């Protein structure tokens, strides 16, 4: 289920967008829930982090789209924002609020549905995924997105999350690599599996993750850069 909010003061445009979304939902076989707001101030007031995508007009009477987006961003860093506007020169400021894209009025279905589809594909996965590991004291479920990197020494596997480290003997690196294939982990050398989300830089052939430096094997250097480029490029922004 995808939740979309339309913020638009022009009733006709709002109805058109609704139509387009319903058509898109039908075509892509997705379930989409739509909520409408008549002005920027309406959505900002009592904003709840329950939407995946905001379709926002820029010029509105009481609060313009950019201001509303700015206020929403203070609370919700993840929601995908797409502006709907007839003023391209305002939309370009969308980067200030990490907007994903904009659609120009008059809105055409083709362009709209393609952009919406791109946004849906790139939305942060909302469902949390967990990995169950066997610790000394019993089983433990860890949220995969919290794992920064995984280290192996002999049979010992250490999961490094921001706050804690978990040690287990229940996996091999190969199994983990396979299991986390779709969670943007990369094996940057024999003993380390790195979550690309947490790579903050590359220095002297090492991936920088918080205060740790993880060696990238010489053979994997190019492939690691590629994986990282593709991963960062696939985030919404």
């Amino acid at each position, binding site marked *: 289920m995808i939740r979309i909010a339309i913020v638009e003061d022009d009733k006709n445009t709002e109805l058109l967008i609704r139509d387009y979304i319903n058509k898109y939902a039908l075509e892509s076989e997705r379930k989409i829930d739509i909520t409408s707001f008549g002005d920027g101030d309406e959505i900002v007031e009592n904003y709840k982090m329950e939407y995946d995508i905001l379709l926002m007009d820029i010029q509105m009477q009481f609060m313009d789209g950019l201001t509303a987006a700015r206020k929403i961003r203070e609370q919700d860093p993840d929601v995908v924002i797409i502006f709907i506007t007839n003023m391209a020169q305002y939309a370009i*400021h969308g*980067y200030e609020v990490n907007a994903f894209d*904009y659609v120009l009025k008059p809105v055409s279905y083709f362009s709209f549905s393609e952009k919406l589809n791109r946004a849906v594909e790139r939305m942060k996965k909302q469902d949390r995924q967990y990995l169950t590991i066997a610790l000394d004291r019993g089983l433990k479920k860890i949220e995969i997105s919290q794992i920064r990197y995984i280290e192996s020494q002999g049979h010992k596997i250490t999961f490094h999350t921001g706050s804690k480290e978990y040690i287990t003997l229940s996996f091999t690196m190969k199994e983990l690599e396979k299991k986390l294939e779709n969670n943007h982990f990369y094996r940057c050398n024999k003993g380390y599996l790195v979550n690309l989300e947490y790579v*903050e*830089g590359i220095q002297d052939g090492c991936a920088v993750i918080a205060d740790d430096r993880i060696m990238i094997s010489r053979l994997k250097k*190019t492939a690691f850069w590629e994986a990282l*480029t593709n991963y960062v*490029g696939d*985030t919404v922004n």
Partner: protein
Amino acid sequence: MNFILPEIPRLHTALAEWSSCMIFVIVFRNRICGLKLAAVTAVTLLIQGVFQLFAGTLPIGFWIPAMVMAILFMFFFIYLSCRLSVYDAAYLCVRAFVLAEFAASLEWQIYCFLILGTESTYTELWKVLNLLVIYLVIFSIAFRLENRFAPVELHINVHLREVALAVIIGLAAFTMSNIGFVYSNTPFSARYDAEIFIIRTIVDFGGLAVLYAHYILNSELRNKQELDAIRNVLQRQYSQYELFKDNIELLNIKYHDLKNQIAVIRAEKDPEKRETYLSEMDQRIKIYEAQNRTGHQVLDTVLSSKSLLCVDNNIELTCVANGKLLDFMDAMDICTIFGNALDNAIESELLISEKEKRLIHVSVFSKNNFLMIRFENYFLGTLQATSGQLPETTKKNKDSHGYGLKSIRYSAERYGGSVTINQNNHWVELKVLIPLQ
């Protein structure tokens, strides 16, 4: 010399031919790898060995045809295990063949000198040991040299002329080195077996050296041409930028003129004239709107010039770009990356006949400590690219085109960055990742 020197055993020749093919297969590996490669190489070693043993039983008249078969076999081994053109494979095959001839000849000569005729009980053991040591030394040196000069793109793109030259050199070396075995009374034939061996080794070495020199010279020439072409592309985008900057300044002046025109229109009494004035203004404003304001002057200018091109061709270009992130980059590199990426995208959009499907989206943002520049364009075909590598140009003349992408990579790598391009359903995505310091 009192005793007649024996000819090189067939198995030695087979091993030499296989090893020299292996050098190129490993250096130019990109079609098969891992277990598959191991299987293919094992099978080819077996076939080459069996073939040479079989050829050894044939009468002398079949010597040349058997040689041709062996060379053809080497060619197919290289051609099928690497993603190379026929010319490339033929060129490498000639080099592999001469290398194999040289290695086999030298090894056998040393064996004959050191071991043959000495009163050793372990002749066979010495023979194998000699073979292993000499081949290991020769082929590891050859491998190191080859690896050092291996082109990044893993193909060399030789032309027919170069292949022909290599074949002539190879043929000359082969004929000169073997003529003594076939005819003993030509001006080039040695009278004694030992001399034949030395001459063969030396001539093969000469052939090898000439082929090697030709190869290096050729690849240096190619690199230079490529660099020149990339520089040309860099320069072109930059001069376009300079040109457009002037136009934009003119446009700004026009913009202020518009204000004066408003006053004129206000004073105009005739409604029809007023209407024409107004629609004229509308048109001018549209052009002005195409100007982008991202917070970076160079980027704005490049984007504006390309957006005008898009407006002209009914391409919907949208751009969400934080230009301030580009402050650390040279104007030249910004022009190169954005200019070429957009030129490519626009060119690809023009192939789409339904105008509403012509979409391009540009994003510039930062994540963690990285700058991401992303170009996406709607695309109806299939991108020709192996993972990660930049695709071959679709333009006909490969020698003079395809430098757009290369120059983008060249610019990105100047900042320690990386470029990938891939296709996701109907969208082509070009991503440039650059670390922010």
